[in-house]
């Protein structure tokens, strides 16, 4: 038993892998930060479009949501990174241009996260908007505010109170889902670990460290969110 354990080289692995993973955290945070902000914006616009948009907008968004929610995030990422540039090049070729468009891996990753999460978050945001008393919109309208003004000034701030806790959960999920960006060549934690493990064969050690890093990222964050949720609900007027 002791013999077996002594074959593991956690210390050596740490020496090379941990600094690399620490660098990778920067990438994870960058992808999550921009991905989440964009997802929130996309989510708000999808929610508003589905609630207040013209029929054609509603129909388009409905189909769009079905497509995004009916396909895996990983497939979407691969599609954005590998397929979208090919399509652009193909169209350019049809128009007589020779192009070699490529998308930066991180940009593709952020776009994929933002679109995918934006669609899921739009449902939460929509529910939050619908849950605000109808009288609030009417009160704003009769004071002379326009529909969208009322929405952004009066309704959204109230909706956000109920939305923020559930959006927080999406934030934690997104941090973990950045691991999928490894498949579109973003040098985040998983890709760094894979590379390291395949070169050193310290497989057990490497992936154990990887798991630990995700825990270090997500556990404190989810506790922060619980705390915010608690603060919001106790200060609820």
């Amino acid at each position, binding site marked *: 038993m002791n013999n077996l354990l002594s074959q593991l080289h956690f210390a050596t692995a740490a020496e090379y892998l941990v600094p690399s993973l620490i660098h990778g955290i920067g990438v994870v945070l960058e992808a999550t930060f921009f991905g989440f902000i964009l997802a929130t914006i996309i989510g708000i616009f999808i929610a508003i479009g589905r609630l207040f948009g013209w029929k054609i907008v509603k129909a388009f968004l409905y189909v769009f949501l079905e497509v995004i929610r009916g396909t895996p995030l990983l497939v979407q990422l691969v599609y954005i990174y590998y397929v979208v540039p090919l399509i652009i090049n193909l169209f350019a070729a049809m128009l007589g241009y020779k192009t070699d468009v490529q998308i930066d891996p991180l940009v593709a990753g952020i776009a994929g996260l933002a679109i995918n999460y934006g669609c899921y978050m739009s449902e939460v945001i929509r529910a939050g908007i619908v849950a605000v008393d109808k*009288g609030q919109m*009417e*009160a704003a*309208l009769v*004071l*002379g*505010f326009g529909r969208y003004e009322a929405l952004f000034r*009066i309704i959204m701030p109230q909706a956000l109170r109920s939305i923020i806790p559930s959006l927080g959960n999406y934030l934690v999920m997104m941090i973990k889902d950045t691991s999928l960006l490894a498949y579109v060549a973003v040098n985040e934690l998983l890709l760094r670990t894979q590379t390291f493990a395949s070169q050193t064969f310290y497989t057990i050690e490497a992936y154990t460290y990887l798991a630990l890093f995700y825990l270090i990222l997500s556990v404190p964050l989810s506790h922060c969110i619980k705390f915010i949720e608690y603060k919001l609900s106790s200060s609820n*007027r």
Partner: protein
Amino acid sequence: MFNIFDLKKSYGKTEVLKSITMRIDDGEVICIIGPSGSGKSTFLRCLNLLEEPTGGQIYYNGTILDNTLDSKRLRREVGMVFQKFNLFPMFTVLKNVMYAPMHVKHTGKKEAEKIARNLLEKVGLGNKAAAYPAQLSGGQQQRVAIARALAMQPKMLLFDEPTSALDPELVNEVLNVMKNLRKEGMSMVVVTHEMGFARDVSDRVVFMDKGFIVEEGRPAEIFNHPKQERTQQFLNRVLGGVSYE
């Protein structure tokens, strides 16, 4: 102010307003009474285009209300107070009252605050400026809602059962504010179940039933000598021996 001809409103197949014709003059106080579901709220909400009429015409000071009209401008002049107050819960009382003048009329902050404080004083809530709506009683909230509507300096106020959500002992503080408004010459259309208020304060009482105006007239006529049987039945039912003198 308003000239209404053959106004109709239906939701799908349900006809809520079948044909309403009436005029509302400057400075008039009109009370609309009638059984539940008769279309009183719907009528009121057509006047500021919260509901879009499905037939007939409404003229406001000679201008026809149709979809080319800027409903925002109409609503600046014709304010509304709701049964459930609908104050903005995340703002203080003062901010509730200042908010629309600042962001709709672009009144300066100092000026808006001055107007707001004066109005709060007027509705007897000068000391509640810093409170949040949830910290106030229903009667106080409704008075804030009236101050909020007045802050836009409307020419007319629509009230949809302003005291129906209140505990009985709080009704009078709101009615008194409305009586004072009347003294200042504010035009008001009030949907109410407060027969005492309708009788004492209004210039004209309108009895609605099933989407029609059944009868209208001066309060003394309607309450003492109703011409229509339906009016009589309704009054007997709501007054039912209780005296509002």
